[in-house]
């Protein structure tokens, strides 16, 4: 059970981190930190849980701690359900936001749930394990994330709502 078995997971971690962290450079910094943490804690890993999920746990811990440190002004509360979804300044934006910008504007803890469930296809219980929160919290964050993205991508008030299929336009 050598630490080198982490390596095959690196491409997937980097791909996922780009959605989580927002750009390639920050994503790679995050993955690098995750690998260092994983190597340092390798002795704590037990072959029981899936290695990928363990790496995801380390990565989310690092990421959420980093953003918490960066925006100490709104504190831990800024990271979970109590945070206002940050779509309000954009309510009057004439253009519909594209999905990537909408996701980037989500509070990080909501974004993490949206990606773990929607992209990585973890079950709600697995996502709860990775983020170390109750399943109910995963569900409420998922709901807030999806509703926030939906609101951000809606056209300005007063116009008729666009058909949902337009959400995937490029």
């Amino acid at each position: 059970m050598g630490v080198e078995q982490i390596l095959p997971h690196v491409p997937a971690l980097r791909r996922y981190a780009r959605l989580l962290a927002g750009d390639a450079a920050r994503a790679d910094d995050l993955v690098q930190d995750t690998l260092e943490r994983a190597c340092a804690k390798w002795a704590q890993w037990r072959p029981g849980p899936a290695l990928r999920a363990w790496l995801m746990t380390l990565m989310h811990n690092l990421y959420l701690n980093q953003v918490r440190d960066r925006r100490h002004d709104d504190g831990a509360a800024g990271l979970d359900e109590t945070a206002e979804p940050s779509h309000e300044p954009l309510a009057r934006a004439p253009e519909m936001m594209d999905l990537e910008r909408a996701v980037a504007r989500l509070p990080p803890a909501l974004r993490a749930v949206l990606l773990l469930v929607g992209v990585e296809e973890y079950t709600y219980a697995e996502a709860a394990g990775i983020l170390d929160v109750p399943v109910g919290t995963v569900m409420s964050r998922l709901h807030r994330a999806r509703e926030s993205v939906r609101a951000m991508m809606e056209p300005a008030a007063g116009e008729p709502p666009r058909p949902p299929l337009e959400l995937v336009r490029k």
Partner: protein
Amino acid sequence: MTQATPAVGDGDLHAFVDGQLDPERVPAVLAHLRAHPAQAVRMAEWQAQRAALRAWHRREDPGPTPAAMAAVVARARPAARRSWARAAAAVLLLAAGAAAGRYWPQQDGPRAAGAPEFARAAALAHAVYVPEIRHPVEVAAGQQDHLLQWLSRRLGRPLHAPVLEDRGFRLLGGRLLPGAPAPRAQFMYEDGRGRRATLYVAVFPPGAAPGGTAFRTLRTGDGVSFYWMEDGYGYALSADLPESELQALAREAYAQLYPAP
């Protein structure tokens, strides 16, 4: 999220979107959607979001794994073999200490020209930065976490700054220096009498490290450098100190960087 009650809630709709709905629950959810078209539209938007997210994810192509990431894992890998090397190196270092200083200059001092590039670069960097009064370091020790993260990232491998306060030297901070194939790092220490020591760190990819891991000294006009290779790292501790004192400092640094298994 399936509830015992038949009422269909948002949790059911999300589970439907994510393929996590209990199959027994599907008919109830479908009936609910038929009765509540607005909720059906909302759920369709969630589905579209999910598909768009997954398409975005597929478009991201991170390319080959950077060498710095592979190096992190490579360094952690041969732990068993390395512990032998560490133990052997520690014995060598202790034996050298017992030889009380004289051994070092006589054995290695005259061979400065034969010292590896990193050791000569370390002596030069020591000579350049130690006299700096106002800017001895780029990042001060007060931001030690940031300093170590930054330098580790730039060198591509984790770095540690030994704590030498028991020997009277406190960390002032560090700076990034040019080097090949990777940049170098310099940590600077100072004692209560204003005497300064620097620990210079070079990182080499597998196969590119200069040969030999013995502990050697390099004497220059500005003091003495005590250098060694370990595990793809090259270290040089430099100071204008009596050699026995420098050697004790180096022994302390080594013991912290490579604790006995």
